[in-house]
């Protein structure tokens, strides 16, 4: 029983990070209908941005202070948003009218480009670097359960961001425009919505979330390196499909489910070796039995 709750806490914290990344995939898919493979690399860039920004900010604010951590997160989010907008502008916008497969291959190319450029010794190099500890760490004991302060931070930040995102998408003007574009891009542009601006905004928003997820992920990971984004990125993508791609609550739910299942699987001897395959097995299962995802609506294809 203890083991059950302990894994649940760990799984929730991991799942929250997957959920944040999955939101970026699902938002981009909702607007442009393609998988942004480079999304996982924005996560990595976010981790590195925080890594380089931290010493500068700690000169102004005391190290490990909450203000400092908030400021680091904000700067990282802004940098990543800029990066996401830039990727869309340079690589995806010229291909907007092309077949989806062309864009998909380009996205793989962009992802490889970022990874290999960052691995070059003149950029970040391929060795693992320790991530600075942004906040003091405590362990809390609740009964026999061990709760790390990082897990609480991860969960807290995720909940705040989810609420903020819900507010932006549902209550603001630009959010309404986003929903309109994802519903029907052509009709939206006829209604006077500047589609290019909305697409840029979507990329910016998704990438900012990925950047913050990068910080949260690095807080729990042993270190950061240029290929760190691939594994959480793939999991998060699967989470987005699991929840129903294009569906925001679905992405959050999918992330939590993947995180929890993976953590439980990792805790069972014998199954733990197959941990890397479990998320994919879930993906294949969902695509076969419910291709629209858990919360997605089945669409009818018109000929």
């Amino acid at each position, binding site marked *: 029983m203890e083991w059950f709750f302990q894994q649940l806490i760990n799984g929730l914290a991991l799942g929250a990070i997957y959920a944040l990344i999955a939101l970026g995939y699902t938002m981009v898919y909702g607007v442009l209908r*393609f*998988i942004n493979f480079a999304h996982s690399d924005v996560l990595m860039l976010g981790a590195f941005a925080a890594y380089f920004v931290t010493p500068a900010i700690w000169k102004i604010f005391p190290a490990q202070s909450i203000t400092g951590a908030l400021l680091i997160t904000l700067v990282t989010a802004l940098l990543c948003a800029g990066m996401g907008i830039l990727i869309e502008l340079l*690589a995806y916008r*010229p*291909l907007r009218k*092309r*077949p*989806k*497969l*062309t*864009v*998909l*291959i*380009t996205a*793989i*190319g*962009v992802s*490889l*480009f970022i990874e*290999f*450029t960052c*691995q*070059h*010794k003149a950029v970040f190099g391929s060795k693992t670097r320790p991530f600075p500890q942004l906040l003091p760490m405590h362990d809390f004991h609740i009964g026999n359960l061990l709760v790390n302060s990082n897990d609480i931070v991860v969960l807290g930040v995720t909940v705040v961001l989810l609420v903020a995102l819900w507010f932006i998408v549902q209550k603001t003007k630009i959010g309404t425009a986003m929903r309109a574009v994802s519903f029907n891009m052509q009709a939206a542009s006829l209604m006077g919505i500047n589609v290019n601006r909305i697409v840029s905004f979507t990329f910016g928003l998704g990438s900012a979330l990925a950047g913050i997820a990068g910080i949260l992920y690095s807080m729990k990971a042993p270190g950061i390196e240029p290929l760190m984004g691939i594994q959480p990125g793939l999991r998060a*993508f*699967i989470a987005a*499909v699991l929840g129903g791609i294009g569906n925001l609550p679905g992405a959050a739910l999918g992330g939590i489910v993947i995180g929890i299942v993976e953590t439980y699987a990792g805790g069972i001897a014998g199954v733990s*070796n*197959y941990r*890397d*395959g479990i998320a*994919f*097995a879930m*993906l*294949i299962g969902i*695509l*076969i039995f419910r*291709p629209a995802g858990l919360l997605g609506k089945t669409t009818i294809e018109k*000929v």
Partner: protein
Amino acid sequence: MMHSGAKRSLIIAIVAAVLLTPLLEWIAHTHSTKYFNTYYLGIGIDIAINVILAVSLNLINGHTGQFSLGHAGFMAVGGYTAAKLTLALQSHTLLWINPILFGGSLLLGGLMAALVGFAVGVPSLRLRGDYLAIVTLGFGEIIRVVFQTTEFFGAATGLPGIPNWTNFGWGWSLAAITVFVVACIVNSTYGRGFIAVHDDEVAASAMGINPVRYKVTAFVTGAFFAGIAGGLFAHHKRFLSPTSFDFMKSIDIVVMVILGGMGRTPGVIAAAVILTVMPEVLRGFAEYRMIIYSLLIIGLMMLRPQGLFAIGKRTVKT
């Protein structure tokens, strides 16, 4: 239509490859120079393996228009199966039996890969476009994880000590057979179905073509040849490790198909040759190699999505 000369060309190609082998090996061993030595002979075999992989993937991605990102997984199945069979049965006394065993290993590797291809293809080929790409990527990863955790296949440390049986003749004969078989399939009456599925699935099924059946056929055939390439790879490198069959390997093969022009066998062969030789030529710029490679993919998609060597009568449908 398949010209009657095609079969003759195939036989000539196989005979030439088999007869050239002892000559090339003799030259490489005795007259080793800077321009020709066993290392270059090895690259010649690498090229043949990549031609098989690219041409077989072209049947799935190019001719039938199904985007598969898991070709390395089938290669792994074929490679491990063939290597295991060889290691179990190889004879050190009756040497004449080994070539027969090698042929059998390759065939079994191909058949196992085809079987896995069938198991993967039937559920996943109901999906399209990027979903299919992700599911095949997923299957490729699952196959890799299985080999990585199974002790029988050497788990993460890999499978060493495979005899060095792949030579120039084996490699190029099988490459010629692959090209021949794929050309025969595509140019037959049956093969028109693949192209119909590629061009318009709905229209094809209205014409009485069962798209799923054609897709699965293409997938299984492609997987079979990928398995054979895996067997050749295993007996060429003499060592198998799960990391040889990761996502990047699948991407490499996909890039060969894209660079050559989807559905164009001569272009794809040219691309396989170029992309195998290029890393060797660029060895001095190893750090920049992969950056150039990724820029090549992006640039190609922006400027020439139909492929570099896409010349011929079939126009690309967007």
